[in-house]
């Protein structure tokens, strides 16, 4: 930590105290951020960048130890401390919008024309409470997950280990650029950077065909979203003439003007360009945050190592879309259609992926669909103009979903890659698995929204606000989803962690010498997680419980209120649930939905005895009640298991036609283009072949031809002179 800051001293000098520029247009903002936080702000992105460079050095010097992991953990812990200091310094006692810009160096600065047109994008960071909220959990979880990965990835020590931690560090750097960047171009750089790291880490096992395919799928799906984002960035520049937040959010002629118009209900005065920006940004957000119809990459991304799934594909990167909507909420608020689109897509995705998760058997995929579903909640949260609910759900979800993924990872690590919930049972009663099982239980309680957990509170904020702000249909859809979520979450818990002990090793099983595969299976012993995994899960277990205490403190509300998303909520609270005030009644309603889901899961999948509340009857790894129910539900269950055939639909409508076109183009290329090129190569060869026999190597024939040639020349000369 200290050494890392020493490295940064020149940089800190460079930016100095004056570089924490007093914002040009914000009178109320000047001086609102306390003290000189420039060096701390710089540490957040640049410590991970330094870490990634050190990992490259480790790869060059062929380090075979766990050194890259310790470098990463140290650098990220430093970044977390810096983020905490930034948070402490930013959220002062005085209310109102508090923000500052810390500049690292000039990045892009084009000027043209006679009227002073300029495209300015500095490498500088915009700090307000929204930034702090995001960076706290990004750096905190990244540190813990890096520690976890030091043990999880220990089979790959050597070049793979260095590659993993290089991409891990680079990811945190990119995420910091995305969240902290003070202009849309730096956000875009970070946006693409996290996409690249996601691609690199999904395809980490690059010898596995499915991993490579999943990496490509993620990358290509994200390109579609990124097209929307880049168009949105361009349109913002074209319309407002700047990309810097300091101007966009605080110049009274820019976002504040349109936000005021929207809040006054004067939508007719808002130009169509401004109304188009949020729609384009939403397309980008749907790609990155895996919303319908661009969500199919996220479940496949589970091919990557589990720490990656936990950090990138559950806790942090996929919330970038929610961040984008929350950050640009002032301009989203200026277009009711954009908000409606986000609510519609969010609620639909939440329900759709919850139904898919109910019928999957791979526990990591279940968690992946659950992430997609919870991201839908977050989108609805911000889009019903309750950004504090959305942001708080992002925060709590990051903790409990990381916990759940890391528990799945521990199971996968211990049981030779086994993830099928039909082949595992009673993990909790095995020796050394208590912490994992308790962490899993806490994570499941959070995800299921059992009363007084963090997930319960943050979900309630979203649900209540959607009823309050007049989106009752979205609210009911999300309530039903909450019930489904509780069911599929506890389906995993009841089948894998409690009940009769049973474990079959997965496909990563390697027989010892002189041992057949059958013998290896018979002799298989799960190896319980070591200290690093247990420590991280212990911290997350406590953390996931403690996060709930932030709710009574109204922490998220305060954080959002002082950010650019503050003060946007709808004015009139008219909606009701069952004729009552949603905020009061939601605690009971959502608790009923959650507990009902758990009870159904207990009845269908729970083992005999206390752990399934006495209503389960499962006595072996397989469960009879759920299996008996499936045929009665009919084709719906089958379709949900096949993921509603969305992948097949995409394959038939997009992938196949493209493949046909590719084959046609390939044929044309081979026949037409190659043919033409080959023709030009073939003509001289043909010519050469006809005249080549003349060069027969025989002295006499050359001599005769020479004589003949001279004779012809002489004859010509004679003829010409005579005639």
């Amino acid at each position, binding site marked *: 930590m200290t050494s890392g800051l020493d490295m940064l001293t020149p940089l800190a000098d460079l930016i100095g105290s004056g570089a924490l520029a007093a914002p040009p247009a914000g009178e109320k903002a000047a001086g609102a951020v306390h003290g000189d936080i420039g060096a701390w702000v710089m540490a957040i992105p640049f410590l991970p960048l330094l870490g990634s460079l050190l990992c490259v050095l480790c790869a060059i010097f062929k380090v075979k130890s766990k050194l890259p992991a310790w470098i990463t953990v140290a650098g990220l812990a430093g970044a977390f401390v810096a983020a905490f200091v930034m948070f402490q310094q930013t959220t002062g006692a005085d209310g109102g919008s508090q923000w500052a810009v810390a500049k690292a160096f000039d990045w892009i600065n084009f000027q043209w024309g006679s009227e002073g047109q300029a495209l300015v994008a500095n490498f500088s960071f915009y700090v307000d409470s929204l930034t702090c909220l995001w960076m706290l959990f990004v750096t905190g979880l990244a540190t813990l997950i890096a520690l976890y990965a030091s043990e999880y990835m220990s089979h790959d020590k050597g070049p793979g280990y260095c590659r993993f931690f290089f991409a891990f560090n680079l990811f945190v750097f990119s995420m910091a650029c995305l969240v902290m960047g003070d202009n849309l171009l730096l956000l875009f750089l970070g946006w693409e950077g996290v996409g690249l790291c996601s691609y690199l880490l999904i395809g980490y096992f690059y010898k596995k065909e499915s991993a490579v395919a999943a990496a490509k799928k993620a990358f290509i799906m994200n390109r579609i979203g990124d097209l929307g984002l880049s168009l949105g960035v361009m349109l913002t520049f074209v319309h407002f003439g700047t990309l810097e937040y300091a101007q966009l959010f605080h110049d009274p002629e820019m976002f504040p003007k349109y936000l005021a118009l929207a809040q006054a209900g004067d939508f007719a005065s808002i130009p169509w360009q401004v109304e188009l920006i949020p729609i384009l940004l939403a397309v980008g957000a749907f790609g990155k945050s895996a919303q319908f119809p661009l969500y199919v990459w996220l479940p496949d991304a589970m091919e990557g190592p589990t720490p990656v799934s936990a950090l990138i594909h559950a806790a942090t990167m996929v919330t970038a879309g929610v961040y984008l909507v929350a950050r640009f909420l002032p301009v989203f608020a200026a277009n009711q259609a954009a908000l409606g689109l986000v609510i519609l897509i969010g609620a639909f995705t939440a329900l759709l992926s919850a139904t898919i998760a109910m019928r999957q058997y791979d526990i990591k995929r279940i968690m992946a669909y659950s992430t997609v579903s919870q991201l839908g909640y977050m989108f609805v949260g911000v889009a019903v103009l309750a950004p504090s609910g959305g942001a708080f759900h992002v925060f709590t979800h990051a903790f409990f979903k990381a916990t759940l993924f890391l528990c799945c990872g521990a199971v996968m690590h211990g049981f030779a890659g086994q993830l099928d919930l039909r082949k595992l049972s009673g993990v909790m009663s095995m020796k050394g698995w208590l912490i994992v099982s308790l962490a899993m239980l806490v994570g499941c309680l959070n995800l299921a929204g059992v009363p007084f957990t963090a997930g319960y509170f943050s979900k309630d904020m979203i649900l209540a606000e959607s009823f309050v702000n007049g989106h009752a249909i979205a609210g009911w859809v999300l309530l039903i989803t909450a019930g489904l979520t509780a069911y599929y979450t506890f389906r995993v818990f009841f089948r894998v962690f409690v009940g009769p002990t049973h474990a079959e090793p997965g496909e990563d099983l390697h027989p010892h010498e002189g041992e057949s595969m059958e013998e290896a299976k018979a002799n298989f012993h799960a190896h319980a997680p070591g200290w690093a995994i247990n420590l991280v899960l212990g911290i997350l277990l406590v953390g996931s419980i403690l996060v709930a205490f932030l709710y009574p403190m109204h922490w998220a509300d305060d954080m959002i209120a002082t950010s650019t998303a503050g003060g946007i909520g709808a004015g009139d609270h008219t909606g009701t649930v069952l004729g009552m005030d949603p905020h009061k009644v939601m605690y009971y309603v959502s608790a009923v939905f959650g507990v009902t889901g758990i009870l159904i899961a207990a009845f269908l999948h729970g083992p005999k005895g206390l752990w399934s509340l006495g209503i389960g009857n499962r006595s072996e790894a397989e469960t009879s009640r759920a299996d008996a129910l499936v045929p009665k539900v009919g084709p719906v269950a089958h379709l949900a298991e096949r993921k509603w055939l969305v992948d097949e639909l995409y394959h038939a409508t997009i992938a196949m036609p493209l493949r046909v076109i590719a084959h046609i183009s390939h044929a044309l290329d081979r026949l037409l283009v190659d043919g033409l090129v080959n023709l030009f190569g073939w003509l001289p060869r043909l010519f050469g072949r006809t005249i*080549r026999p*003349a*060069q027969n*190597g025989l*002295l006499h024939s050359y*001599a005769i031809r020479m004589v003949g040639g001279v004779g012809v020349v002489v004859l010509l000369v004679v003829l010409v*002179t005579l005639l």
Partner: protein
Amino acid sequence: MLVDIATMAQGDFPEPMTGLTLMHYLMTSGLLFALGLVGFVTRRNLIIMFLCTELMFQAAGIALIAFSRFHLNHTGETFVIFVLTIAAAEAALALALVVLLFRRKETLDASSWAELRG
């Protein structure tokens, strides 16, 4: 031009070589050259072929000297002396080459060497 040359060839040499015309020498030179050329084309033996090239060489030399004497200009004769010197050196070189070639294939047939066939 051709007519001029023909007319010139009828002319007598200057004193004391009366009775001889340039044509006599040019005819000798031409015959010698034709002999060499025919020999070069028809014979297969490398040594004979080389001798034929020498024959053509000397034919050219005779023509040069004849013109030189005809014009009373010594340049041609000087030139031929140089050519003879060089031809002597070149003959040594060429015969050495022929010997080497013979050692390699035990034959003097020119058609044995056709490796540069296209």
